[in-house]
């Protein structure tokens, strides 16, 4: 098995570093474009009796009397030292808020993608093999609808449906269980498993499944479409025709020849859909009342919680790079021609 070269890993880490640098510079410069006093924006547009005080504190924190490059330098320096400031909404360090919500979102995303990828591949292959038959037509229309219907809308329908059945799956964990698990990773699913509480594990997983299914719809539908398209394309390729001429069986041609060639494309696809799924996750989290990046943003918007938003930007950027690195590595392993 081929592994990525050291050169590649160094390059990836450098990219991550420069991206965070870019995000920080961008967000800091953006403040200066804001109408009015930057300190006013930084303090979250305060109103009322304590406004004066808050603005003064923000001015001090930003160091507005120093030259711009020095301001940016301190800003970046502080960030890399782990001091991400205080969230205006949560009154807690941003780093803490971000990691807590990130773990919650990842929990949902991991469950969603482990539903989406296998199911998408299986259905996509079925669709490609029975192209033009009823199964394919149904799958095609279904995937078209799943892509074009907003996931938050499907989630609302699903949620109302569950309510009508009398199933309440609001939140990440039943309130009565909340204090019974010791927090280690931050994910209730994993924490309950570590502490061996099966009933809590079942409860948290049950609560994660419906929103995860909704988040999974988009990547799954896209996988079906891409596989359907590219398997048909691969079946046109010379090497598949030649394999037929050598008398290989149908299943062998489909799985070992056509599907094998699709894996790099699927891996690349999910590197990209991941970013898009974060938006879906955000809306679905809100509907199902779960913590996560999405609900953090919804809570941050009314308070103009700028430090929290910067933290979220940087972290989701790093997350994107990590996911794409994994997707790159899968491509290298699955395609002998690619080298990185």
């Amino acid at each position, binding site marked *: 098995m081929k592994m990525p070269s050291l050169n590649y890993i160094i390059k990836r880490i450098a990219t991550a570093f420069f991206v965070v640098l870019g995000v920080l510079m961008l967000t800091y410069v953006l403040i200066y474009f804001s109408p009015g006093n930057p300190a006013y924006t930084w303090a979250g547009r305060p109103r009322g009796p304590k406004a004066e005080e808050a603005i003064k504190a923000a001015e001090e924190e930003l160091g507005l009397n120093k030259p711009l490059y020095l301001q940016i330098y301190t800003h970046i320096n502080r960030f890399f030292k782990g001091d991400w400031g205080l969230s205006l909404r949560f009154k807690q360090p941003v780093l803490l808020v971000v990691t807590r919500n990130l773990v919650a979102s990842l929990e949902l995303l991991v469950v969603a993608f482990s539903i989406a990828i296998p199911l998408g591949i299986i259905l996509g292959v079925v669709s490609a093999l029975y192209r033009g038959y009823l199964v394919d037509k149904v799958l095609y229309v279904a995937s078209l609808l799943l892509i074009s219907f907003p996931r938050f809308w499907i989630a609302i329908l699903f949620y109302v449906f569950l309510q009508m059945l009398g199933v309440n799956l609001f939140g990440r964990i039943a309130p009565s269980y909340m204090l019974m698990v010791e927090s280690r990773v931050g994910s209730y699913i994993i924490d309950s498993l570590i502490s061996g509480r099966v009933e809590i594990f079942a409860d948290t997983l049950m609560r994660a499944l419906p929103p995860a299914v909704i988040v999974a719809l988009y990547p799954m539908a896209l996988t079906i479409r891409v596989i359907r398209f590219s398997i048909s394309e691969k079946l046109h*390729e*010379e*090497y598949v*025709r*030649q*394999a*037929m*001429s*050598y*008398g*290989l*069986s149908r299943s*062998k041609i489909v799985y*070992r*020849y056509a599907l*094998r*060639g699709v894996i790099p494309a699927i891996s690349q696809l999910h590197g990209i859909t991941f970013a898009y799924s974060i938006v879906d996750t955000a809306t679905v989290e809100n509907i199902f009342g779960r913590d996560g990046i999405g609900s953090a943003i919804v809570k941050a918007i009314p308070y103009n919680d700028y430090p929290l938003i910067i933290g979220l930007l940087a972290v989701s950027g790093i997350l994107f790079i990590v996911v794409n690195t994994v997707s790159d590595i899968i491509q290298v392993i*699955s*395609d*002998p*021609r690619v080298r990185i």
Partner: protein
Amino acid sequence: MVLNEVAVRARNLWIGYEEEGEILWALNGIDIDIPKATAFCIVGESGSGKSTLGNAIAGLLPPYAVTKGRLDVYNISVIDGDKVDYSGVRGSIVVRIPQNPLSALNPYLKIESVFSDILKQRFRINSKVKALEIAQKALKAVDLPSDVLGRYPHQLSGGMGQRVAIALTIAIDPEIVVADEPTSNLDAYLKGATLNLLRDIVRKGKTLIVITHDILFASALCSFIAVMLMGNVVEIGKTEEVLSNPLHPYTRELIDAANLNFKNSKYAINRSKTNLRGCAYSSRCPKHSARCYEKPKLFYINESHGVACWNL
């Protein structure tokens, strides 16, 4: 042609492709008999239907192909009207040698996996060791070192790829080998080497069907030649008969072109307007006459030499 041992027999074979509701016919009612244990060349320009005929024999017609007539391979009916069934023929009786061997090998698999996949299927064996034994023997026959087995297709050169493709064919040991433009991507030296390897296949008593536009290569390799034009066989016969006594004006044109004799050559225009029911060559034929609006049948002047032309 009267022969007892026939490898491929086509009777009024029509093959077309469905293109947006219309059917474009690539083969217009072909009758052909290919004898066993010989090298048989099908010569023609691009678009003459020679590749379609090759694919029909090898069982590689695309799913949107439309068929009429009959095609038998080794007395097994593969095309009968619109019924197409190649099970038991493809990969055991007929194998195709690809035009571009490098794109015809699965880029994601090592050569040894290609060999073992195919041989396990062909001889119904389960052990990889046994499959690789056959593979090594086949590679030896084409003068390739056995370390080729550990490589991926993109690590091979064009000539090696061609030899791997031939080695695969030898390992499968089919009765009929269809070679589609086997030398179009090779330089002169490799062309010669490939020619020798293909001759070896015939020497083993196999039927070799070569599809080529290169009449010189065909004459060097084959004992029979069929000349095709726009979906019809216009001349067929033993190589020496056809080359020494070309009867159809199109065959003459091909031979002149191969001898770099371009005195009578000119660009044909309005070729697409050729009447399907008439002679395909009529629009550029110097001896064109009124009868040419009717399609000529193959007319045998002796046991093996046939020509489809009204003006003999």
